[in-house]
């Protein structure tokens, strides 16, 4: 058993120096004594939210600290030798030879000035693992295995000439080419659209199995890691929470935190009965200035009073453009927007103050949605002052009421956005929208930048507020779990068109159109073996055709 141990980490401590503005630099500990053992040919999933230290731990397997991060304590034993304190030369001989790395953003990780083949075979040649013809042959083999188009000539291209999903596979090929013992996958599918993610995930899984390589698979998405890992380690704030076989972690988590992570996407919301619409969009077509194609093509949807219409689509589907058209930022070239029984002027300048007040917007990045030089009190108070003329104590009282409504309580009004956590920032943005007493709030990917547990909290808050304030939501998202949690009606968008639209129960029930089917079946589910089932099912279907 001991002979089979590839990587053993004991009591790993990782520190970094942080430079808070206006204060002396201080030491922060990112990882507090983590232990980890990896056998040859096994896949260990490292999972946690942002700040859990999962990437930092992953890179420690190469004794690498990113951006001033230092491995300050413990032992890291790779192939039987201690590497934490190894010399730079010794580290060079193992990096790229025994351990390789696949990053989240392959687009940035490839040298833009070199052809892909050069980069994929570089390590194999530099470390003398194989000759150039051997390495090139192996690269082509890997390209084929990873399902890249034209594997013979794929390597002749430059990074900017291939798609994001293909680059992610090419980076996997680059990692596997020198026949390493261990590959570190650092969120390799997170930046991809869901329908691309499933293919890349399947390709990675197959490549791992075929090459018998061991892997550390780092991700924040438990459903994804469940598909590829043999074991899962749950991390939080630089400490281990739980370690177990994948099936055990998914089915019978022992720790509360793990349980919360497992149940995170299970929020469900019963669909409300049909009601008269607050917003009706008819035949909306729009394009950006100076472009020659429509980003929105004859979009028609309705949103009932006090309900939620989820607009689902992948990047480039036009879902955010729809929001810009409704707010008046992008006047449509044709079509009508009727709001609360009156037709809205297509552009912002033609709208009344009440039109503006009754439609509010919440953004994806709460960070950039709040003026960093204004306090929370000013941010929430301004709409009160602007729309209702509230001043002084009356305004402050109302601000506090709103803060209570978003469950933040006292003491926040004087703080600046930089002093809030990600979830708190998004709550303040919600309060600012509510302050205007709107009839409609447009939510543009409001939970996508947040960690799953925080996102869940925001969704619950939004649902509660809807019950109290009877406000309607136009909820734009790429995430189907979010849709299930919050929608009454759904519009699925693809390349600027609504391809499926109706009550949630109808849209999510078969028979599906091709795109919705692809989209729904691509969302990873929290069960072992889901990926194989979907892939097998798809193969059968394409064989059937």
């Amino acid at each position, binding site marked *: 058993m001991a002979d089979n141990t590839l990587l053993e980490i004991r009591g790993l401590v990782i520190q970094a120096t942080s430079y808070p503005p*206006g204060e002396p630099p201080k030491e922060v500990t990112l990882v507090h004594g983590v232990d980890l053992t990896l056998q040859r040919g096994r896949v260990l999933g490292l999972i946690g939210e942002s*700040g859990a230290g999962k990437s930092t731990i992953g890179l420690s397997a190469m004794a690498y600290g990113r951006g001033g991060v230092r491995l300050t304590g413990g032992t890291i034993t790779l192939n039987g030798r201690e590497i934490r304190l190894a010399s730079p030369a010794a580290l060079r001989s193992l990096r790229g030879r025994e351990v390789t790395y696949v990053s989240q953003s392959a687009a940035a990780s490839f040298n833009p000035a070199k052809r892909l083949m050069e980069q994929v075979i570089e390590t194999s040649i530099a470390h003398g693992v194989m000759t150039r013809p051997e390495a090139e042959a192996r690269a082509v083999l890997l390209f084929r295995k990873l399902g890249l188009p034209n594997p013979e000539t794929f390597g002749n291209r430059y990074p900017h000439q291939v798609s994001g999903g293909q680059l992610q596979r090419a980076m996997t090929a680059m990692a596997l080419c020198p026949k390493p013992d261990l590959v570190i996958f650092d969120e390799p599918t997170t930046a991809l659209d869901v329908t691309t993610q499933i293919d890349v995930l399947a390709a990675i899984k197959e490549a791992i199995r075929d090459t018998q390589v061991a892997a550390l698979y780092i991700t924040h998405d438990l459903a994804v890691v469940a598909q590829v890992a043999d074991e899962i380690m749950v991390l939080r704030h630089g400490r281990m929470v739980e370690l177990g076989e994948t099936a055990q972690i998914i089915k019978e988590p022992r720790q509360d935190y793990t349980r919360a992570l497992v149940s995170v996407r299970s929020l469900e919301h019963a669909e409300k009965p049909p009601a008269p619409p607050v917003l009706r969009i008819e035949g909306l077509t729009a394009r950006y200035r100076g472009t020659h194609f429509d980003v929105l093509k004859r979009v028609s949807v309705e949103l009932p009073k006090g309900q939620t219409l989820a607009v689902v689509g992948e990047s480039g589907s036009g879902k955010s453009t729809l929001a810009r058209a409704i707010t008046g930022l992008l006047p449509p070239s044709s079509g009508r927007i009727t709001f609360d029984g009156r037709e809205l002027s297509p552009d912002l300048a033609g*709208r009344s103050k009440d039109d503006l007040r009754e439609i509010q917007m919440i953004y994806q990045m709460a960070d*950039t949605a709040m*003026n*960093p*030089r204004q306090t929370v009190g000013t941010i929430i108070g301004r709409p009160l002052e602007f729309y209702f003329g509230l001043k002084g104590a009356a305004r402050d009282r109302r601000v506090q009421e709103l803060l209570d409504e978003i469950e933040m309580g006292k003491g926040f009004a004087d703080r600046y956005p*930089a002093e809030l956590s990600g979830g708190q920032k998004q709550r303040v943005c919600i309060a600012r929208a509510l302050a*205007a007493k709107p009839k409609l709030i447009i939510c543009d990917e409001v939970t996508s930048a947040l960690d799953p547990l925080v996102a869940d909290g925001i969704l619950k808050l939004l649902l509660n507020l809807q019950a109290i304030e009877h406000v309607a939501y136009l909820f734009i998202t790429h995430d189907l779990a979010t849709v299930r949690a919050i929608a009454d009606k759904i519009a699925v968008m693809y390349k600027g068109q609504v391809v499926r639209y109706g009550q949630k129960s109808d849209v999510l029930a078969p028979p599906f159109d091709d795109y919705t089917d692809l989209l729904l079946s691509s969302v990873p589910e929290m069960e072992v073996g889901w990926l194989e089932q979907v892939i097998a099912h798809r193969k059968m279907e394409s064989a059937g055709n």
Partner: protein
Amino acid sequence: MRLPFSALLGLSLTGLFLFIAIFARWIAPYPIDLAVGGVWEGPSAKYWLGTDTIGRDILSRLIYGGQVTIFVALASSILAFSLGSFLGFLAAVKGGLVDQLLSRMVDLVMAIPSLIVALVMLSVLPLNLTVLILVIGVLDSTRVFRLSRAVAVDIAVMDYVEAAKLRGEGQSWVIFREILPNALSPLVAEFGLRFIFAVLFISTLSFLGLGIQPPLTDWGGMVKENKDGLIYGKAAALMPAAAIAALAISVNLVADWVLTRTSSLKGGRGG
């Protein structure tokens, strides 16, 4: 917040220069344009820095010269700043034709080195303080324009500015309450750099004989009139050059500090 040593040094030196410039009349031991001693006397208790090529006290001339240098530089950098940032913000917020027109004009002026433009202009214009301030200020405003436009454009695409527009806020709220507070710190640092530029510019023009005219003098002009002293090995002849360098370096230190402070504010969101 603790001041780093370099910033402290820069601030105190800059303060000292300003103090001397403002109170020059009471500080300078001798009049500016009077031969009080022999030619090229060495430093002594009477003439701390010695006398120049026609027997004037170098220290007194240095003090009065500093007044002129700092005044011209300050006036023209204030002009450059108000003109440049006003037009820069205007271009950023208005966009469209206004932006195009202003930006292309600035491109054109910046397509030629400022010194050359100034020389061409000064070959026609009369040489007096107002003209010098105007020429330096207008030429330098192009750089302020580029920076303030870029900063404002960066801020104008932020979601919080969009949110203010969607709320229905007027243009003055958008500019003064949303954009300006966030643009201020890079602009403050820029002011320091523009001031240095103006100091170097007026000194260079005077050195070339195309800046401050007698009986007034400034540091650049003093370098020119004392350059023979150097050949005779008089270190005092280097004093005006050293003064220019000291002023430029100390303001640079302050600007550097403001810049790092603001960039750490930007990037410093913890974690």
